[in-house]
């Protein structure tokens, strides 16, 4: 039996990796991957809290249901995000965020 701490540590590690990628990478696709990692860390957290949380009986499935919705939304987000990345590449021939600087003032 693996203890709750390990799962939470894993989730925190994955979330930090995602956060690091989203903040430091300049390639839009890499940022998107970082964000997806963050969402997956949320899922690990949700399922862990559902399984080990002392606040509510395990028969209440809120944690699992929440994580299912997060998975679905992460998928939709990836689809929309990649489409937008393609559309920006077509007009600018780059997906480097530092080079997208037309809008400022």
């Amino acid at each position: 039996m693996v203890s709750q701490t390990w799962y939470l540590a894993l989730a925190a590690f994955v979330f930090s990796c995602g956060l690091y990628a989203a903040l430091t990478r300049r390639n839009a696709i890499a940022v998107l991957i970082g964000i997806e990692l963050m969402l997956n860390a949320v899922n690990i957290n949700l399922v862990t809290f559902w399984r080990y949380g002392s606040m509510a009986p395990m028969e209440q499935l809120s944690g699992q249901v929440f994580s299912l919705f997060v998975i679905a939304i992460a998928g939709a987000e990836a689809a929309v995000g990649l489409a937008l990345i393609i559309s920006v590449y077509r007009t600018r021939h780059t997906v480097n965020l530092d080079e997208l600087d037309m809008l400022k003032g």
Partner: protein
Amino acid sequence: METTLDLSTLNLAVVLPELTLIVFAILVMAADVFATPKNPAPRQWTPWIALAGVVAAAIVNLSVSGREVTLFQGAAILDKFAVGLNYIILLATGLGILLSVKYIPRINKQVGEYYALTLLTATGMMMMGAALDLITLFLALEIFSLALYILSGLNRTSPRSTEAAIKYFLLGAFSSAFFAYGGALIYAGTGTTQYYGIAQVTAAGLANTPLLYAGIALLVAGFGFKVSLVPFHSWTPDVYQGAPTPVTAFMSVGTKAAAFAAFFRVMLVALPFSYGAWSMPLALLAVITMAVGNFAALQQRSLKRMLAYSSIAHAGYILTALAGGAAEGADAALFYLFTYAFMNIGAFAVVMALEEMGAEDAMQDRAKGLGKTHPIMAFLMAIFMFGLSGMPPLAGFYGKVLLFEAAVAGGMIWLAIAAVAFTAVGAVYYLRVIANMYFADPVDESADEVNRSLPLDVGLAIAVAGTILVGVFPGFWMNAFQQSMALFGG
């Protein structure tokens, strides 16, 4: 383990206005399919189908109002607050569609998708106000956000529009990850995702406080992004400037209304017993938001960016009512957002008429001398600017009075005083536009054209009528939004 699904609790009346919009979104897409190069007529009907959907949803909304019901075992609620928000969203959607009729075909031929996405965006926004569960809230937030990312990148050949979309998307998705993490931590701290359940657990003192407070902080960051509070505001001017102007007009009001409605409901219904922990941070956020928004707006050359920073400042004003923590704050915010819909969409409609083809923006210089060349446009813009600055007797004045009253009712007198001071700063840049229009000479005689069309004129007429009439007769509307929220145990 036995789970039963009681169909009688699936009270679909609660989401009937949203369902109406979804049906019309499908009709729009269906009409679009039948358009061919030889017979483009069905495609030209799509704006009117969408507008019919907005009107139908408003009628349905009227028919379901006055009842207070929850559905899906407490996942959503239909109270006066949700109904009020529905009206505001439908108003913003309707005006947005009127602005789009002539504008959108110029930038993108796929107009059917545009109107379908607009209706689906509105659906998600309306669900934000009805959500009574963190899962519903997250879902509604993503429904409207994903559609808005696409709408702001609608002009696929424009480098500015696509850049706005990708910036909005990356920061939006980033913030929604924080939002989901916050929801997970609140679930961890209280064992439930339902607002009433969270309130019950915190009232009884059973919550795991560190987890709960961390969750609240992340949730506030997520909301802060959506309503553009400083320091989560950096996307706002870029997206407002780059997105097609009708989309900017619609989302500046719709996003703000939906996200603030959900923000008020989470804080006042689910977390009232943690008030001591979140009131002071929100008050400080409100102060820096008003400061940065107003002072940055002073320096903008682009009218769209100026309105973007002004919208940040307005988010600060609304937040003062939430920091007060009084239930009247929710009513004041609804009333304010209702008036804001008229004034802000009206102002963007004038900017849209002034902007040059392909530029998607109008500079401050463009307004110079407008009082001589286009007296009607200048007069309308002056009304909207006076309204946004909070000049009596226009609509913005009573909204601000109610907001600051709610801050005082919550014991935050210093915050109300700060807000009034920042309102005075804000008046400078609104009045400068008016001064430019009436006391400056036109800069460029050749750029004299104003893009007007019948739907735009109708939209402008509604906006100006609302700005003046709600200001002159505020009583009726204030009553309509009074004691709107169904509080925990209340």
